[in-house]
């Protein structure tokens, strides 16, 4: 992990309230799928932890949803050519064993973006992607998700694709595709539904968690989560990816 000054190449809206920000670092930064970065937004004391969506050497893309003042300012005040202070790469990221070949990817909301990084990286795997969106207007980066062997887009209102949640779509096909691992990221209710869906199936599920962070590097103990063994883990350093049964969700 390192502190870099990055130059913005592009910062554009790609769906309702979702922006795609691409920046260029001075040197190539190796980023694993599921790793994130902390982006400083001028004058605000805390940086924004945002998952990396695409990493191509010096060129890094992250996507963020407009949520509070920081993301609104990031969207409106930062244009191509301007600089950003970024700390990256952070966290453990997703990792798969060689023998884990058939992989299901289940995502919802902005949780789809670290999973796109996984789809792009694990090219030798057979990936079945189930990506959930509120409606047609929220769907984005379909061209990246289509890299999967099979892509199912699910919408809450059925305006496009499967009518229902990504977890429901996955659950219907789970016994047929027999995944050897599941990678997931999304809102807590989605992760809970997924935990229930795979309970007792013996399939390892690696989930990427989200939490309000301070330092982003594991020092301040602000973003801890409860582990099922009673200990606490740092989402930023020990995570953000955990096996689903390892943490309380």
């Amino acid at each position: 992990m390192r502190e870099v000054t990055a130059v913005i190449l592009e910062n554009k809206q790609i769906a309702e309230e979702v922006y795609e920000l691409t920046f260029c670092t001075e040197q190539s930064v190796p980023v694993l799928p599921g790793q994130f970065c902390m982006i400083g937004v001028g004058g605000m004391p805390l940086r924004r932890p945002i998952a990396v969506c695409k990493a191509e050497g010096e060129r890094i893309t992250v996507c963020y949803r407009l949520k509070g003042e920081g993301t609104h300012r990031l969207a409106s005040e930062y244009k191509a050519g301007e600089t950003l202070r970024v700390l990256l790469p952070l966290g453990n990221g997703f990792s798969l064993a060689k023998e884990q070949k058939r992989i299901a990817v289940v995502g919802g909301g902005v949780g789809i973006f670290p999973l796109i990084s996984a789809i792009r990286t694990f090219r030798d795997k057979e990936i079945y992607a189930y990506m959930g969106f509120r409606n047609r207007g929220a769907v984005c980066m379909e061209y990246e998700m289509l890299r999967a062997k099979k892509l199912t887009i699910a919408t809450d209102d059925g305006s496009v694709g499967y009518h229902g949640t990504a977890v429901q779509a996955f659950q219907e096909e789970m016994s047929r595709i027999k995944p050897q691992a599941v990678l997931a990221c999304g809102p807590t209710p989605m992760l809970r539904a997924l935990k229930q869906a795979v309970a007792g199936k013996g399939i390892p599920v690696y989930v990427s968690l989200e939490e309000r962070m301070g330092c982003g590097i594991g020092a301040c103990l602000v973003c801890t989560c409860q582990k099922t063994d009673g200990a606490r883990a740092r989402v930023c350093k020990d995570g953000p990816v955990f096996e689903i049964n390892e943490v309380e969700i």
Partner: protein
Amino acid sequence: MSNLQVTLCGKTFKNPVIPASGTFGFGREYDEIYDISVLGGVCTKGLTLEPRAGNPVPRIAESRGVILNAVGLQNPGVERFIAEDLEWLKGKTRVIANVAGSSLDDYAKICARLDGLVDFIELNISCPNVKCGGMAFGIKPESVREVTAAAKRECKRTPLVVKLSPNVESIANNARAAEEGGADCVSLINTLTGMAIDVERRKPVIANNTGGVSGAGVKPVAVRMVYEVSRAVSIPVIGMGGITCAEDAVEFLLAGATAVQVGTQNFTDTLACPKIIAGLDAWCENHGVKNVAELTGGLQLN
């Protein structure tokens, strides 16, 4: 190059910049980003006799120019710190062990355990985020004196720093009480108790409801308090509260501090401390200051 060395209680620091407790862990994570041996010292995460799990999350919130935190003293316990991190950290720089407890006996025991092992012990009697974080000891001058004396009895070889709370009637009176109790040094300010509300949910952002406010926005309050305290006591003062750059550090030194701690800015910029050290050097050089120590108390009132 100016001389950035300062002396606190007979111990020299290569420069007056120390990351503040709770923002820096035990230094290992930051050392992955820069060599922390450039720092004047490191103030550790608050330590307790037994490990503590801390508060529920969210533990942090942001407001204009400040943050609020309520971590609740999560730490692995003093024994694990001694076994796993202390030697490594001592090989890097001066070690200030920040300690907390819920009784006089806790404070005495943890000081006894660390006495002679670290360069300084900083008594956290002002953690606003846990019921038994010592805040009760940090409010009234009588209890400040009492807990300082109990700790000091066990600090036979290690100088004792008492970290003062700003959430009190008179911080100068509490500083005097710490001095009377035997403190070798005082540090201030700890965080100001605050609250941030999520108006959509009509609930506080932080799970603990209230949290300690820190960051650039608290600096004028902190500078004023350092000024008051440094005139009230004859022991040295470590100043902190919203330092983001070398000029901010100079303000604290002029107000009467011998050294400074940097907290929240480590989150804003991981390289904050080394930048402030380099900036102090440049500032001194540009202002014809040969020794940074000359700045302490150099304030000229209007």
